[in-house]
């Protein structure tokens, strides 16, 4: 099973994400934002956290129009898995691969701390290693994590069980306490908290490792 991790100018969680995939048994290819194709046989694309293109215009806006994102969109259209974390979530919303938008935190402050998250659905390749309702701890590190969408979109996300994670204590003003959402086919996940930063016992809590193991488990069966 093979993962590709994209690097944009200003990405800073790309290596952490690659290591988290490797620890779960993935072969990892590193992909540059100007690449026009993904390596052959990629099962999952990781869009990492960071400050792509300096957050110019809007967080993730420039990266979402990078050449590699057309290849990521084709991969998603084929039913491929995509995981966007933090800035990667912002990139996926800007690219239209996930609904909604990430706005400035309601408190206007950059928030960098571990947060408790409720696993809102276990019905996805990413969250099947958790029980629905289980509380896990991942770090957050963002200035623009305030998830917003129009009321119809929010209602549809809830009705279709596409809210993947919610904050136990909302740190940023996100609508419905949303920390992460799934695409309609449940194969694209974007979330603000960082599972890849909670996946190595040498660095603290490891609640995030189960996401990478679960994804690897699905692919190993395939």
């Amino acid at each position, binding site marked *: 099973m093979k993962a590709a991790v994209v690097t944009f100018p200003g990405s800073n969680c790309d290596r952490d994400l690659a290591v988290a995939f490797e620890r779960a048994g993935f072969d990892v290819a590193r992909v540059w934002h100007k690449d026009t194709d993904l390596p052959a046989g990629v099962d999952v694309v990781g869009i990492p956290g960071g400050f792509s293109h300096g957050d110019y*215009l*809007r967080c993730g*806006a420039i990266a979402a*129009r990078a050449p590699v994102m057309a290849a990521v969109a084709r991969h998603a259209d084929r039913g491929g898995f995509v995981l966007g974390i933090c800035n990667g979530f912002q990139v996926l*919303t*800007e690219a239209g691969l996930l*609904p*909604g*938008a990430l*706005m*400035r*935190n*309601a*408190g*206007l402050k950059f928030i960098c701390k571990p947060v408790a998250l409720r696993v809102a659905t276990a019905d996805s390749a990413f969250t099947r290693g958790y029980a629905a309702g289980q509380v896990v701890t991942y770090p957050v590190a963002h200035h623009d994590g*305030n998830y*917003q*969408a*129009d009321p119809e979109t929010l209602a549809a996300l809830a009705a279709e069980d596409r809210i993947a994670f919610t904050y136990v204590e909302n740190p940023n*003003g996100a609508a419905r306490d949303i920390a992460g959402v799934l695409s309609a086919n449940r194969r694209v996940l974007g979330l603000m908290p960082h599972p890849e930063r909670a996946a190595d016992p040498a660095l603290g809590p490891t609640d995030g490792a189960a996401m990478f193991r679960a994804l690897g488990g699905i692919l190993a069966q395939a």
Partner: protein
Amino acid sequence: MALKATVHVMLKDGVLDPQGDAVRHALGTLGFSGVQAVRQGKVIELDLAATDRAAAEAEVRAMCERLLANTVIEKFSVTIA
């Protein structure tokens, strides 16, 4: 003559603007007590090679839809001069 486009991007009505609210609060701290609301947006100026106003406006509106504004949360207006 080459044209200049000015794009105003603002949050849609009803979308909370915490930055605008912080600016309003700071103005109040400075003694400007009559400010009831502040909305903060962006102005983007483009120098265009185009000389046809209608075509230029259509192209800039396409730029807004595809990049300059996030129409999930933002609205935009285009002025060609």
